[in-house]
């Protein structure tokens, strides 16, 4: 079944499912997949740290990279995924033009992700990060194929 991952949401699936997220701007799209169990998931997180809005983080942890990433892994483990087999890819984290640091939310999202992965000894296998593009990302859970689409062009991540 095809499932759409909205902004500030997460979806997991098994063999036969396809996960898609649209309009990744400065948000982080994180894709994880266990090729042996053929299970995986996708997160579309908007902001780096949940402490900025604890109330929101309580109601919707997937909005934040620091809360959403661990929950994504947990959910896929729950479907039989295993950490040592997990293939992890990231997309998004773009920024508008200009030098204003406050609006580098995309860069901060990426930094928090990298720290989390590093702490847990998880390698980022592939990434399509930064720039001004709006990206659509899909994950086919029968093959693990991850596609990133910018404008009308798709490429394999």
């Amino acid at each position: 079944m095809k499932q759409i991952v909205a902004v500030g949401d997460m979806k997991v699936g098994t063999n036969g499912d396809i996960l898609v997220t649209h309009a990744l701007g400065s948000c982080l799209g994180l894709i994880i997949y266990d090729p042996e169990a053929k299970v995986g998931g996708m997160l579309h997180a908007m902001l780096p740290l949940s402490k900025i809005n604890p109330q929101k983080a309580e109601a919707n942890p997937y909005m934040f990279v620091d809360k959403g990433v661990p929950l994504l892994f947990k959910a896929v483990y729950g479907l039989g995924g295993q950490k040592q087999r997990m293939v992890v890819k990231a997309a998004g984290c773009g920024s508008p033009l200009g030098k204003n640091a406050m609006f580098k939310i995309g860069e901060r999202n990426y930094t928090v992700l990298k720290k989390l992965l590093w702490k847990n000894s998880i390698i980022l296998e592939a990434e399509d990060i930064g720039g001004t593009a709006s990206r659509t990302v899909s994950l086919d859970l029968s093959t693990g194929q991850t596609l990133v689409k910018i404008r009308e062009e798709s490429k394999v991540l």
Partner: protein
Amino acid sequence: MTRSPKKKIAREIASFPSIPQAAAKILAMLDNPNTSAEEIGAVLRYDAGLTANILKLTNSSYFGLPSKVASVRQALVLLGWKKLAHLIMTACVSAVMDKAVPGYGLPMGELWRHSIAVSVVAEGLAKELEMTGVDEIFTAALLHDVGKLVLGAFIKAETDSVDATADRGISFEKVEREVFGTDHAEIGARILQNWSFPEQIISAVRWHHEPDGAPVSNPLIDIVHVANVLCLMIGMGVGREGLQYHLSDGAVQRIGLKEGQLEWVAANAVSWVEEILLSFATQFE
């Protein structure tokens, strides 16, 4: 570009639809805090569909009213004049803005979602910054991209040269100017001029991508600018040009925005927008 499209664009601007008469009248009444239910009723009298839409919006969970509102008079009492006026504007503007925009890669509903998003984010930022005297911000934000409805078809026809120019990495309104001799902000301002909108709203639309270029700076311009970029970043109505717009440092400094305020508003934006759009979705059952 084969020939200068400016004449063709000018013709499109001249024949662009007007918005319901009620909108201009409500705008003229915006400054009067003592506006009565009778006066509002007189404006809405001849448009039953509009009144129905206004009541549906009033009952959206965005406004969090305790009981179901059944009349404009009741809405005025519960919301106050300013909020009700924004709501009437939203209902009026949707007739014009709720369209697909080819060229910008915005399918049906996305420009409208973006317009609502920039409006609630602009309002949210103004509130966080404790700004006063910016009542027109909601309407300015709602209409900031109206020019895309004209320029979209031209972009569609010139996709290759637009893409080639955009690939140089310059801000997208500059891409538009280079290819077409004008941009969607300028076109939008001209449409609003034809509608006889207030000067402040016209200038906020005109300079929403280049707030530092405005002859007179104004918090209205700066907030719409910042709110627009934020909404693109979080994917609310972002088109095929993506985030390829320059964010003005000057605008951020002039309004005194802090990182915490920006992210707090961003975190709330999605649910604010969904609440408003949900009430709209029930209109066409």
